[in-house]
């Protein structure tokens, strides 16, 4: 096991370098000068050049990259924003909980909806419920997330006034000037965004769970369980579920990792300034350090979650031996 973890860690480092390097390269391929933006529209060339030097942009990009790596490994710092001169670490730490609330909240909703629905559809194929579920799935996959978000926001938030339209509330350490705060406000504001994201993602999961359960129901060991005289309820709970859920675990892990990188559309629609929103902003302002920070966070999230998924999988399925 230790050998396995060491190997995963080494691979993670390789991945990490690859991902950050590619981001740097892309950034430098784009023909725009962040120094100019930072210096302002009316700045003179000399002023721009000064800013460049200040930001370290006058040096060749591999030097910049190595400096960035050195700073990250030795100081744990991702640098400072070109635009606000604030610590990127802080920026990410501020934005991450927002995206995390959205993603984890949505995933909980997804699993609560799709697992029971998927199981039920699999047990009663071609029934009314099954067909309704499949139609829902189709809609969820086809409609763009921001459209669903906007419609929900309009109908439920504006028209019916049941939930707020946009905004985020801190749970802990609520700032003085904040308009809202605390657990209830936070939950209240997150309902709609989580629901939107859940509706988009749940579709795929329902189909997936349904297919997995249907496959598992046909397996020989399920027939053995019935032959032993087990009631159908026990067969499903004890024998089918654990086997059918294995691939779902993988999917959930990967999706969480991916979504933590920033559910841009939904964050935009609901005015949540999470990682997605931050990334969008920094692209527009050519704020490389902040963008790099989001990329790093996303990459680390995916790496960590894929490891968690693999470990979980090995724990659930005794046939898997991690080597």
């Amino acid at each position, binding site marked *: 096991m230790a050998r396995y973890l*060491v190997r995963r860690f*080494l691979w993670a480092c390789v991945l990490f370098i690859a991902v950050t390097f590619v981001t740097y390269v892309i950034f430098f391929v784009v023909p725009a000068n962040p120094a100019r933006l930072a210096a302002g529209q009316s700045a003179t060339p000399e002023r721009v050049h000064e800013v460049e030097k200040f930001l370290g942009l006058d040096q060749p990009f591999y030097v910049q990259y190595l400096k960035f790596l050195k700073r990250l490994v030795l100081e744990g710092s991702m640098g400072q924003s070109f635009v606000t001169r604030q610590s990127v670490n802080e920026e990410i730490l501020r934005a991450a909980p927002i995206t995390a609330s959205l993603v984890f909240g949505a995933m909980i909703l997804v699993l609560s909806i799709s697992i029971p629905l998927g199981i039920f559809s699999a047990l009663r194929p071609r029934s009314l419920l099954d067909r309704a579920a499949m139609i829902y799935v189709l809609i969820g996959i086809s409609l763009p997330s921001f459209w669903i978000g906007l419609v929900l926001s309009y109908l439920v938030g504006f028209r019916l006034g049941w939930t707020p339209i946009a905004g985020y509330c801190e749970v802990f350490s609520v700032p003085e000037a904040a308009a809202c705060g605390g657990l209830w406000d936070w939950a209240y504001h997150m309902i709609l965004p989580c629901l939107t994201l859940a509706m988009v993602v749940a579709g795929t999961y329902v189909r997936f769970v349904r297919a997995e359960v249907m496959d598992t129901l046909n397996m020989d060991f399920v027939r053995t369980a019935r032959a032993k005289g087990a009631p159908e309820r026990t067969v499903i709970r004890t024998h089918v579920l654990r086997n059918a859920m294995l691939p779902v675990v993988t999917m959930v892990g990967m999706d969480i990792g991916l979504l933590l990188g920033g559910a841009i559309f939904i964050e935009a629609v609901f005015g949540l300034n999470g990682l997605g929103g931050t990334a969008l902003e920094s692209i527009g302002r050519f704020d490389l350090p902040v963008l790099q920070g989001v990329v790093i966070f996303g990459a680390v999230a995916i790496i960590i979650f894929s490891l968690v998924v693999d470990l979980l999988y090995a724990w659930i399925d005794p046939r898997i031996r991690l080597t």
Partner: protein
Amino acid sequence: MTGDELLFVEDLKKHFPVTRGIIFQKEVATVKAVDGVSFSLREGETLGIVGESGCGKSTLVRCILKLLEPTGGRIFYQGQEITRLSRREMRPLRRNMMMVFQDPYASLNARKRVGFIVGESLELHGIGTPAERKRRVQELLEVVGLNPEHYNRFPHEFSGGQRQRIGVARALAVNPKLIFCDEPVSALDVSVQAQILNLLKDLQREFGLTYVFIAHDLNVVRHISDRVMVMYLGKAAELADRDELYTSPKHPYTGALLKAVPLPSPDAGRARKQVVLEGDVPNPINPPAACNFHPRCPRFQQGHCDVETPPLAPIGYRHLVACHYPLERWPMDITAQPATAQAVESTG
């Protein structure tokens, strides 16, 4: 009926490494799937290779066909050594060595039409024009007992037995000299099995084919082979002419196998003493020392069988066995202690 030596295999080995390591993979163990097998095959002959799961028979055949690279030993086809030939150099030879597989459902590409499946090797070896190839394929379909008008059908439109016939037609397409059959009838019903076995024998007579026939069913091997090789855990335990092996087996494992086969005759079946071989086949990663059958052998003599590996040596006319204490006669109780062992004890 048999002619010159077509195939000669000398001490063939195929070892699969088991590796561990974080970055650099280090070999910590080996799976000795095939561990020194030798035999020769004459033109027109059928060699039956029989053994249980894990004995290495399928791996052996794939090595001979160079679908896997042998780890050691030599292979001679028509006197020419082919062991170290590259893929390109092997290509012209592959015309002469074709294979029929076990699973009639998996061995045919479900998305291709039968005409394509049977004629593919013709195309690959650049034989004939498309029109000539089509005619040849239809000819082949007829030869194996199928309707040539089914040229454009898909595999799923045929039954298991018919699919196996397609597999045979495919193997025959380029007029090979040597056909390897890897358990071609194991997945078929008894009545269909008889059809395919008869077909294979008829084709052998008509086209002068040479077969290497792998099976785990001793009855089938008996029916179709001229010579039989019994394999156990990567090595050959016994090699003899068919009648000789079945009437005078010398290796205790062969004896155990023959005793284990259920006979379709209530009186004969229940009369013979059931000597049941206990235990499972050991792990090929950690084969037993010296004679690899010794832990399960009822005639095991300590100090000899677990110390000195018995070579595959002649014991009679064209009969080789790898055993220090071969069976003295047949039928006999294979748990009876070997006569020679008692002699050793009394003098030792």
